[in-house]
């Protein structure tokens, strides 16, 4: 479904991603772990189409389509969803209006009729419950004044609404208390489906206690330095990145 080949990306002339290779099949859950600053968010932002990052070489295919040629909004309509590490607050645009506009953009793209305000409200109320948010969050500005955990749940809510082909979750587990982590994990498990892939980026092992990934990759210094099954995550938990010859907050020395 997703195929990343030798992807290089730079910001302000500095190379951050130094040749990423990754293949994800429908139904799979992949986890990417790695020290701070290793390029995890950069990878997710590049996939979503953030133009701050310049792709200097490489290729990304989604269902055979050249993803890098598409605008951000076209990627979203093609099925890419990114749960942001730092969701943006947008006062003045209500969450409800935002979610409805996004859902209707997807529906229009799929040739479906737009949802009326009433029908959408029903759907939105149902999904806010599933991520344990009060319906009052729909009336507030997008992420405006939300706590860290509420923002993350609002991201999962969007994923559930938009039903993407590939959901990229950038540290959706960080900054959450135990209960919120459970809610988010439950949401992610609900997202799992045969024709959907999930790419979970995480700094910690703890989300993986709730969601067992099919594959785990270690990203360090802009490269994937090791891949394995869920056992790899446990190994990392025990021995840290140092066990791989990678020190936290430092470039990879392993290759």
């Amino acid at each position, binding site marked *: 479904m997703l195929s990343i080949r030798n992807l290089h990306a730079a910001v302000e002339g500095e190379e951050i991603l130094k040749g990423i290779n990754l293949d994800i099949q429908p139904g799979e859950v992949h986890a990417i772990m790695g020290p701070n600053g290793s390029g995890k968010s950069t990878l997710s932002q590049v996939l979503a189409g953030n133009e701050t990052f310049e792709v200097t070489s490489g290729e990304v295919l989604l269902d055979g389509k050249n993803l890098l040629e598409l*605008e951000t909004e076209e990627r979203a309509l093609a099925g890419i969803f990114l749960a942001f590490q730092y969701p*943006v607050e947008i*006062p003045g645009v209500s969450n409800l209006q935002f979610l409805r506009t996004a859902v209707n953009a997807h529906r229009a793209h799929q040739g479906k009729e737009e949802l009326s305000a009433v029908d959408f409200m029903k759907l939105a109320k149902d999904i806010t419950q599933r991520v344990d948010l009060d319906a009052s969050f729909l009336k507030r500005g997008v992420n405006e004044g939300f706590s860290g955990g509420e923002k993350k749940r609002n991201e999962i809510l969007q994923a559930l609404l938009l039903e993407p082909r590939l959901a990229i979750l950038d540290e959706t587990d960080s900054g959450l208390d135990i209960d919120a982590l459970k809610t988010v994990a439950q949401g992610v498990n609900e997202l799992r489906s045969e024709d959907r892939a999930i790419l979970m980026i995480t700094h910690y092992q703890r989300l993986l206690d709730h969601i067992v990934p099919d594959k785990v990759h270690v990203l360090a210094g802009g490269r994937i330095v090791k891949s394995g099954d869920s056992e790899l995550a446990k190994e990392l938990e025990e021995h840290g990145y140092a066990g791989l010859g990678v020190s936290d907050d430092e470039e990879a020395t392993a290759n």
Partner: protein
Amino acid sequence: MKAAPTLSPAFLQPAGGKLPEPLLTLRQQRGKALVDMPLPTRKTENWKYSSRHLKLTEELANSLPSGRKAGPGLALDHPHILIHNGVVVPEASDFPELDGIEISSFADLDDDTAGQLAERLDNTLDNQAIQMARLNAARFEDGLYIRLKPGAVLEEPLYVIIETDAGASGSAYPRLYVDVGANSQMTLVEEYISSGDDAALVDSVTEFSLGEGANLTSIRLSLEGDSVQHIGATGARLLGHARLDSHTVGFGGPLRRHDLQVRLEQPGAECRLNGVAVSQGKQHYDNHTTIEHVAPHCNSEETYRNIAADESHIVFNGRIHIHEDAQKSAADMNNKNLLLTTGAEIDAKPELEIYADDVTCAHGATIGQLDDRSLFYLVSRGISRQHANTLLTMAFINELVEQIPVEAVRQTTQARLNQFIEQAFEEA
């Protein structure tokens, strides 16, 4: 040195209209004082950015003919009054018969009342700062005098439609005077519109006099067409514990200028001034506000937001003057500006003059563009760039529009602003 340009004598022609004697006399006096009135130039501080848009050509000197009988066609199911080219048109108005309020055209006032009014006219304004209000005083042919009696509470808003009919070139000088009696309460909607597309000048003056404990909500919409220059002044004086809530929404034109001057004259008076101005093409909008904290223990809050698209230009000048005796004043002014293109220009200037030492004052002005991160967040959800831009731009002013307390006006305004914003982002 080149002599400073002065007002063309054509503008000093005798004005028409059927005014009572005291108002005629006043008008004549004001006219004499205008001979050789210097016109604002680039060097006139309060007209620095706008003087070049002010075109007082001779073709505009004639008063536009008034007295059209048909209404402006606005399907308003509310009590409303039409001022057409500066003259009240009773046939097209619906003077509500309500307890506690007297509404009259200047023309219909008896000499006594007209005499009292003549003594008060322009009292709310700092005439030095409002050159064009002086021209209105020399040229007005009628006006609307609204008196709300002490203690009266008007539940329904009163609409005044000020229409400029630019079927020919010329000028109009509408005038309103609103006496809001002690402890009375009302909402007034001024809707400035135009028809026809010849060049026209509207030089309007609106005055509010608020008695003790009076409460006035003033909504002012400036919606004229692209051939109309509108220079308007609004003055308000507030006695003890009176409150003014002002909401102005304006769309740009060849020249739109609004001076809003509020005097908090007795303790406990307070005002909240909200303003939105938007412009596109080569339009120009200039808001100048002044809040005079004359007495102690008064509060003022001011929030203005401007959006300039294309090659348009918006000016905001917000002055707060806290007089020496005005201890325990609280003043908060906030102005945010959004440029939608690199060709647009916004000049924002807060001016604080504080002569009392025990006051709480805050002010801020920012000029910026739409936030890239917000835009990316929206489009990453499949929302088109155009739609995302529209949402973010509307968000910038929505907070203020939502505070307009009359639903019908709020909805119309929202729709008009939406239309403006969508147009601004239309793909060329």
